[in-house]
């Protein structure tokens, strides 16, 4: 502690430079935390899904629909204990700048299959009773200032026209990764408005035992293999993962470019820290003359680098950890449950320690090894 005044005095020598150095580290690690959190959030989303739920989609692709008539045949298969279905709607609200997911579901079977949606019982009953009702995530309530009981109108993009729904219920997800910004409404209303087309975007199949998933999935797909709409069935996790992998290349690009930026900032920072140490050659020689040992000077220089790097890390990583939940960030709906994971904080701290070593080691070794007479000659 008695050397603290020396460390602090040295850091205060060029206050602006020290502040800018700390801010550079903070910015670099804020970027690092943000970019890595995109990847970890996507990975967490890919892990979503109940072990007892399968998803059946059109084998050609998710944008192709399936006949609603498939439902009863799937339900009749051994091991299937429940069935629900949904259809992507793709409506937009207002100027459409604020994207959120909206789709038609069979309300009763859907909510039964997804206990993760926490809904007040009275609101749930109101939604189930109201054919034009909507169930919305709590974020939408805040985002658009909607109220329970209010009518909201979406403009259909895939299914044109104005679609008006009554906000009957608000859900809170038990797992933040599920997201709290979706709007779901009655499939029956959807089917009626589009002229009884009898289509489902995908089926959600509840099974008796996760161990039976491969056999049941195969049975479903085999059943429709030679039909006009063959199916592709997999676990819900695989279904979620397929969405996440759509981000794959973007995620890779973001990570690569982002890390290059972070690395460049860290190099600049390390250079500033080394420059600061180089300027003090004479003072180091004086301290050695007074009796400061090589080891002590090495330690003091490393502590200085550590204070800069770790303060920057605390601001950058702490800022990311606090900021995103505070602004309820969810990547315009694409990153539900976005959060800075503990593993990101740990890796960020290790990066800061690495920076401390990279930027402190060279000047610290130089200070420790510097011949006093040679250094004094430069001063005198």
């Amino acid at each position, binding site marked *: 502690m*008695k*050397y603290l*005044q*020396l460390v602090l*005095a*040295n850091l*205060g*020598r060029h206050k602006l430079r020290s502040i800018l150095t700390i801010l550079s580290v903070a910015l670099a690690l804020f970027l690092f935390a943000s970019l890595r959190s995109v990847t970890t959030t996507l990975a967490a989303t890919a892990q979503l899904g109940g072990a007892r739920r399968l998803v059946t989609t059109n084998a050609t692709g998710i944008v192709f629909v399936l006949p609603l008539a498939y439902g009863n045949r799937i339900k009749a298969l051994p091991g299937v204990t429940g069935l629900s279905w949904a259809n992507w709607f793709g409506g937009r609200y207002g100027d459409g700048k604020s994207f959120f997911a909206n789709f038609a579901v069979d309300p009763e079977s859907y909510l039964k299959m997804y206990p993760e949606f926490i809904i007040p019982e009275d609101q749930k009953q109101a939604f189930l009773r109201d054919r034009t009702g909507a169930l919305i995530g709590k974020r939408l309530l805040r985002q658009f200032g909607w109220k329970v009981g209010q009518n909201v109108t979406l403009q259909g993009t895939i299914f044109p026209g104005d679609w008006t729904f009554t906000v009957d219920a608000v859900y809170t997800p038990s797992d933040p990764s599920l997201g709290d910004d979706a709007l779901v409404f009655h499939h029956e209303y959807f089917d009626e408005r589009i002229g009884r087309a009898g289509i489902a975007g995908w089926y959600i199949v509840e099974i008796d035992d996760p161990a039976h998933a491969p056999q049941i999935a195969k049975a479903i797909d085999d059943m429709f293999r030679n039909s006009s709409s063959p199916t592709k069935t997999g676990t819900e996790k695989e279904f979620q993962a397929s969405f996440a992998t759509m981000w794959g290349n973007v995620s890779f690009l973001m990570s690569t470019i982002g890390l290059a930026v972070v690395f460049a900032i860290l190099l600049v920072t390390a250079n500033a820290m080394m420059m600061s140490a180089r300027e003090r050659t*004479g*003072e180091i020689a*004086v*301290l*050695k*003359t*007074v*009796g*400061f*040992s*090589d*080891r*002590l000077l090495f330690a003091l220089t490393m502590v200085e680098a550590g204070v800069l790097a770790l303060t920057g890390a605390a601001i950058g990583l702490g800022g990311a950890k606090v900021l995103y939940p505070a602004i309820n960030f969810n990547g315009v709906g694409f990153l539900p449950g976005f959060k800075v994971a503990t593993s990101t904080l740990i890796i960020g701290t290790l990066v800061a320690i690495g920076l401390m070593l990279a930027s402190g080691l060279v000047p610290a070794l130089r200070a420790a090894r510097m011949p*006093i*007479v040679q250094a*004094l000659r430069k*001063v*005198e």
Partner: protein
Amino acid sequence: MALVEIRDVYKSFQREEQRIDVFSGLDLDIEAGSFTALMGPSGSGKSTLLNLIAGLDKPTRGTVRVNGAQVSEMTAGQLAAWRARNIGFVFQSFNLLPVLTAYQNVELPLLLTNLSGKDRDERVKIALDVVGLADRAGHYPRQLSGGQEQRTAIARAIVADPTVMLLDEPTGQLDAKSSQEVLTLLQRLNKEFNKTIIIVTHDAHAAERAKTTLHLEKGDLIEKPRSPSVAAVR
């Protein structure tokens, strides 16, 4: 036994292709409580001799012994610890740390000791009082005059009560008045506190304040003693 014993010391430097011999078998004894001035033209080896005594540099051959410790044989770590206890060094250009106050600069050598904060505070105040700068403790070097800066450097040199004080051109950057103040202070430290002082100087007036003046010419000593403190000179 002399406080400083230099025996058969050789010192040479390599400058590119050229070898420069500064000392070739130098012998010198300096007694405890003496006040010695080292004079001589530039390049005669005055500062090199001071550096050897302080353990800042090592002889090419020979031994340097201070207060019984063989300085020339110590490792870098041993030398640092030894310097902290035994040497008070004062530079021509003061070399105070600009980011520290006069008080903090003087406290530096005491940070290396096991003294408590209270004891350090007491010693720093005494040292500043001795050099007449008790009222400038909180000033930064840039807020002090040249003379005050050098007196702060002297306070830093005496605060740990070293065995010997070494001063390299202590009045070289001072005006006449400040030089006199610093020299008077050194005489006082020698007389009242029995400090062993060795100064390197070009200034004949400064040398006059010393009890003994040694002249170095091309690495050889020419004795002009005014006291018996220099016992043996080659």
